[in-house]
């Protein structure tokens, strides 16, 4: 088992729920991203989703779209992100999931990617536009080196499909809490609960819930039935709003630890 599995086990032992935080690598710069990562870890974040920016993020709302554009403008590449992980690994054991779209990985070379990512200390990948049917071309390499392939489950995913996806999943399952793109609508707790319970019935893997969660109250409610909560756009917005503030890391850490508090 890798860092992700270990983390969920540990949390389970302490009856805590996982706080998973997304941030776009390179927004505003990779060096700031590194500082943020280390700050977030201290603030109690359990797992990091590091967004690899892409020119055409079709599953993302305006906040993450703009963050990706800023990151690309600042010169961020997949290679740079992998270097960042290498740097982080020198001082931190926080589980890291790379989050993004397939084309940058494909352009980099899937085999090379799996190899370098493993070496850098990447624990999982979540590729938005690589559904079950197309995942093989990446997974033959990432599975081989023990990188978890985090699978998405949508509100539209039917039972049969869910079963197939869950059967092949590793790390944890990521349940998308809204029929929509990142950071746009407020999730309906009851619906999520029903679906998460359904997922639980067919898998032993931890289930995290994300898309549109920004408030401690939401996090608390979701944590009642899920194993983890993903905060994305809210953090991205806060980073953008405070990027010129000397206290950026402090502000983000403050926000994040506020959420983590309710998950304990």
């Amino acid at each position, binding site marked *: 088992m890798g860092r992700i599995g270990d983390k969920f086990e540990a949390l389970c032992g302490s009856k805590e729920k996982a706080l998973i935080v997304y941030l776009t690598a390179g927004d505003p710069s990779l060096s700031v991203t590194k500082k943020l990562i280390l700050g977030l870890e201290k603030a109690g974040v359990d797992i990091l989703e590091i967004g690899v920016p*892409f*020119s*055409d*993020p*079709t*599953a*993302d*709302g*305006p906040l993450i*779209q703009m963050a990706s*554009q800023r990151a*690309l403008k600042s010169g961020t*590449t*997949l*290679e740079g992100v992998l270097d960042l992980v290498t740097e982080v690994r020198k001082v931190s054991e926080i589980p890291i999931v790379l989050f993004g*779209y*397939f*084309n*940058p*990985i*494909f*352009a*980099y070379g899937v085999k090379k990617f799996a190899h370098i990512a493993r070496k850098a200390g990447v624990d999982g990948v979540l590729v*938005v*536009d*690589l*559904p*079950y*049917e*197309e995942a093989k071309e990446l997974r033959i390499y990432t599975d081989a080196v023990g990188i978890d392939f985090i*699978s*998405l*489950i*949508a*509100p*539209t*995913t*039917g039972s049969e*499909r869910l079963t197939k*996806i869950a059967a092949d999943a590793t790390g944890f399952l990521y349940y*998308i809490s*809204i*029929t*929509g*793109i990142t950071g*746009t*609508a407020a999730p309906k707790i009851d619906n999520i609960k029903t679906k998460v319970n359904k997922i639980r019935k067919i898998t032993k893997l931890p289930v995290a819930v994300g898309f549109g969660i920004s408030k401690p109250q939401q996090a608390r409610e979701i944590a009642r039935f899920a194993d983890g909560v993903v905060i994305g756009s809210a953090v991205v917005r806060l980073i953008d709003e405070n990027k010129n503030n000397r206290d950026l890391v402090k502000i983000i850490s403050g926000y994040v630890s506020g959420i983590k508090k309710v998950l304990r």
Partner: protein
Amino acid sequence: MKTQPDQYGHFGIFGGRYAAETLMPALIELEKAYRACQKDKTFQKEFEWYQREYSGRPTPLYYASRMSESLRGAKIYLKREDLNHTGSHKINNTLGQALLARRMGKKKFIAETGAGQHGVATATVAALFGMECKIFMGEEDIRRQAPNVFRMKILGAEVVLVKSGTATLKDAMNEAMRYWVSSVRDTFYIIGTTAGPHPYPQMVRNFQSVIGRETKKQIMKLEGRNPDVLIACVGGGSNAMGTFYTFRDEKNVAMYGVEAAGHGLHTPEHSASINGGKVGVLHGNKTYLLQDEHGQVRDAYSIAAGLDYPGVGPEHAYFHETKRVKYVTITDKEAVAAFSFLSLKEGIIPALESAHAIAYAMKMAPKMARNKIIVICLSGRGDKDAQTIIETNAL
């Protein structure tokens, strides 16, 4: 040739279904519904009725005698898709998808558009079947293609301004996909070309293949044999695939897909995904893409707004790889010259997109014997481009 695509929508290594999980069930549902319609004679009859009675099919296969004579070479025929209702081949596809959507009980259409031709064709079928309609269009394109924006509005469609990214077709498609992710339960996404996730490339190709089927029948009647050469412009590739598909197994028919070279392949300003791009994944399928070394998609450019797309349909990528079709390029300048040439020689103002195919025929025909036959897909009319031509003082 082996039947393409496979059950997951792969044409060789291309195509597929690289879509967000939220959309996957909808794509699978769509595929099922489409398969049912393919087998359903009533659906086929209905589709044919609208093509004939509404769109005005069959379109003529017109022998362009003055063009042929002035080039002193092969006999040139024009497949007159410009005579379709709304002025291009796009309606062939939107009619098919709209009928399918109606069958599926959907009440809302969305579509992306660049030049506005597909937007108009979608707004048209939305009105025809009483559906709500949203058209996503880049801010930049809305400015460039105002007349088509007016037409969409008159047809009752909402034109959604897309400011994200570079505010052109690629971003309109991104935004349409985002909207679709949020509304997938009651909304049908009418994709305008042989791109997108499976089953779109195959479905759009099949809806467009009426072009080639008619061409085959017509040329057989007129000349008693297959054409020697087929030429069509390639944006996403729907008019070209519609023209080529029927002839794919006819070894004696050479096929040329014409990509837009814009200001030249040696510049960054072109739309030649096959000739100037690399394999990648965008908008749900694997294909040739204009992209940088890091896999970031590049802006496409062409004077023809409808060719201004950084990808190309996966089946074209496959035809390129298998060498069944030769993909060539034509610059803005050559296209404009061809635009003018056809207008003056035949009284037919072609769309700037189609002018790329004309331009390539102008290069080929003089080198061919008089008894050889070229068929060009004249995918649309150029009324929409008159302003561009006059403004750029291109004539």
